[in-house]
């Protein structure tokens, strides 16, 4: 007998400090699985088109994945959803740490914030009790200071805190929400949305428990996943070096975006990679998110000198965005930059992106050399990086322009600067050169967030690891499709990754397990669903739940902007790779159009404009379940 599954949501209106408890029906689990899918439905129904992302009508929904609370490997993830101040579109941002687990233990699946508080507040959730408390003494404090202060006031044991830094308070459009000190819901400015509501932090402690239908079945599937992790070379790299290991791979294969995507390789780039960081004592093995055996999260220290410090990370994206992208190979400066971004609550990818935009604008003479006061605005200066990060978070001087994101900054700079603003829809591209990886190019173009890797990560196209090659063979019929430069079958590969990613987020497991390392597959998820809830469904039904979420997210964007297009940043579409083995490669309109039309066909969209048809919405059960969905037809 399958158990009743309902989601319990704390609906907090900050404007009048009222709290309402909402519970969903079983149907919401059946259609969306929870978390990311559920958030997308709520956002579509309750955030009307055209509203100001930083105004009172936006919602910020923080949902723990459905598996969180039981030891399904890697099930510790949280999805945060809102309309983004960076893009003005749908946005979900995902993070690990231990906050989601604490929320579930307290008996809640989600917290949603609406309205705007007259005064700065923080929320304290202890089991069923939720209080809205004065945060005037916390306002202005950094992420670590705030977390430490709340631990001091509320007691440390079992407490976890989601918090914004000064950047969130100051409405920087790429401000983060940080959990467990160093875990970032980084992209899309979720921290600015929280800041606009004047909520400094949400502290959670729970003493509840979670039962499962079949403990033995759960245990035996855990053992199987452990065995797969043990065999996975990718998982071993994550364990040893975290995502930082990817720097060396990318630099050696001329895939590393350097100097704002002008170049694809940097001399001495090895000095930014995981191996160098570990061997030189900068980085050590560290903390895992709840229930995670992979443990990609690291800690890093600079022991002395002007960049002395300690923080979580750094990740590949950070090393690439703050390091190689800015032409910096002094890893100590990059570690300082990482520490500051974490502590001030800034997304490292967008921070790096917008700084690179500024440096290139100076290089090309589009802005005066002294726009940053006395700063040396050339590639490769660590001190400049550190000082710009601070001025962005506090919106001082040129930092105030950068805090609006690359798209807006390009409008202020004017001229042709939009050409080197490596963004689409207002989101800075993450550090993947899509010119030399065609599945990523398609995945980035159709991503409702904008061009980044956290909607679908089709890393299998590189075929580096046996798991990748097996997946490509299973999905596409042959390993020969592991070719990043080919467009053949890439739409099929992206479609699978999109659905899988949506399922992954909704259940609260980690995309590093289901994609990239491919140690948890569909049948494994089905076994976990059976063991945990006593639910039996087919693989096809499972993937359809993912697709439903993906389509619904696109519908949100189409309602906001009926002319919403699947695009990549101008530079990647028009400027070829400058040197190395892939010299001359780019993402052309023709190439993208070819992949898109096949993608639309697979997805069941209208082939010309890529819009969902009535037939599709009806077959996915969205028509009739999601209020107002017919507006996008």
């Amino acid at each position, binding site marked *: 007998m399958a158990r009743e599954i309902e989601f319990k949501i704390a609906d907090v209106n900050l404007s009048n400090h009222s709290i309402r408890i909402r519970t969903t029906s079983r149907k919401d689990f059946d259609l969306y699985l929870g978390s990311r899918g559920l958030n997308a439905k709520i956002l579509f129904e309750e955030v009307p088109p055209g509203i100001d992302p930083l105004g009172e009508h936006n919602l910020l929904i923080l949902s723990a994945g459905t598996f969180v609370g039981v030891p399904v490997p890697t099930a510790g993830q949280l999805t945060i959803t809102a309309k983004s101040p960076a893009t003005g579109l749908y946005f979900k941002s995902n993070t690990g740490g*231990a906050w989601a687990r604490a929320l579930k233990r307290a008996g809640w699946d989600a917290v949603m914030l609406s309205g705007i508080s007259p005064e700065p507040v923080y929320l304290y959730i202890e089991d069923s009790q939720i209080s809205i408390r004065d945060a005037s003494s916390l306002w202005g404090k950094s992420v670590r200071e705030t977390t430490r202060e709340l631990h001091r006031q509320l007691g440390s044991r079992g407490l976890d805190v989601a918090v914004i830094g000064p950047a969130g308070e100051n409405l920087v459009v790429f401000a983060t929400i940080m959990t467990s000190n*160093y875990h970032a819901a980084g992209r899309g400015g979720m921290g600015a949305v929280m800041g606009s509501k004047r909520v400094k932090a949400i502290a959670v402690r729970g003493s509840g428990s979670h039962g499962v239908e079949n*403990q033995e079945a759960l245990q035996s599937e855990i053992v199987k996943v452990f065995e797969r992790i043990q065999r996975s070379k990718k998982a071993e790299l994550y364990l040893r070096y975290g995502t930082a290991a990817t720097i060396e791979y990318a630099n050696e294969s001329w895939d590393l975006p350097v100097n704002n995507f002008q170049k694809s390789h940097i001399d001495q780039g090895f000095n930014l990679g995981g191996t160098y960081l570990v061997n030189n004592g900068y980085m050590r093995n560290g903390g895992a998110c709840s229930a995670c055996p992979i443990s990609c999260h690291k800690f890093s220290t600079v022991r002395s000198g002007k960049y002395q410090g300690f923080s979580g990370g750094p990740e590949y994206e950070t090393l690439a965005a703050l390091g190689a992208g800015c032409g910096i190979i002094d890893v100590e400066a990059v570690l300082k930059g990482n520490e500051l971004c974490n502590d001030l609550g800034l997304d490292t990818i967008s921070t790096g992106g917008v700084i690179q935009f500024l440096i290139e604008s100076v290089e090309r003479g589009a802005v005066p050399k002294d726009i940053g006061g006395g700063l040396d605005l050339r590639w490769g200066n660590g001190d400049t990086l550190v000082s710009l990060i601070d001025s962005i978070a506090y919106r001082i001087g040129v930092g105030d322009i950068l805090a609006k994101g690359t798209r807006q900054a390009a409008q202020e700079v004017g001229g042709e600067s939009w050409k080197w603003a490596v963004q689409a829809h207002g989101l800075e591209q993450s550090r993947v050169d899509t010119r030399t990886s065609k599945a990523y190019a398609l995945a980035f173009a159709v991503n409702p967030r904008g061009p980044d890797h956290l909607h679908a990560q089709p890393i299998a196209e590189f075929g580096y690891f046996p798991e990748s090659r097996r997946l490509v063979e299973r999905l596409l019929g042959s390993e020969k499709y592991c070719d990043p430069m080919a467009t053949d079958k890439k739409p099929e590969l992206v479609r699978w990754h999109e659905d899988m990613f949506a399922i992954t987020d909704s259940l609260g497991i980690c995309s590093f397990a289901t994609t990239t390392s491919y140690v948890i597959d569909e049948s494994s998820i089905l076994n976990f669903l059976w063991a945990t809830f006593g639910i039996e469904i087919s693989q096809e039904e499972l993937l359809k739940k993912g697709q439903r979420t993906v389509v619904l997210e696109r519908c949100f964007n189409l309602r906001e902007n009926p002319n919403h297009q699947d695009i990549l940043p101008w530079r990647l579409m028009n400027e070829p790779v400058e040197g190395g083995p892939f010299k001359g490669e780019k993402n052309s309109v023709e190439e993208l159009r070819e992949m898109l039309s096949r993608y639309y066909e697979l997805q069941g969209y209208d082939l010309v404009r890529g819009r969902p048809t009535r037939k599709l919405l009806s077959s996915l059960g969205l028509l009739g379940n999601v209020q107002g969905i017919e507006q996008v037809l």
Partner: protein
Amino acid sequence: MDKTILVDLTKCTGCDMCVDVCSAEKTGSYSEKGTRIQIDKDEARGTFYPLICEQCREHPCVDTCPVQAICYDAELSIFRVDAESCSGCRACERVCPYKGIFVSDGVALKCDLCGGEPRCVKICYPGALRYVDVSKEAILADLEHKLTKLKKIRDDTHGQGDRI
């Protein structure tokens, strides 16, 4: 030969899976209650210490218990808490050098090695928990290891104490 669980401080990642399976073994569901292993986390400094009874031979908990509730179990050569006699006075909690015994809902909880097949050791993917034969060498090596780790953490966060 007698066995015990030893903790390797260099390997714990704070994932809490041991806590999950221990509570499930003892109470039937996953929670922070009823568990006989806890993780002392200092996320800001990135340190995670599993707290569990290491079945030490000095057993100050046994000596200090005013109601003799901690009794010898000859089968596994360990001490167990007799929940009926325990008064929940927390005297044991205060003297344990490993912080491996804790009072929850009025009863002291302490690892009983799951009758010889400890679940936490099986689930600990990073290998921070080891189920080993008790020998003088093993214990000394373990203590040495713990000291080294503690010194390293002190060095790592040196000068950062106030900021973190």
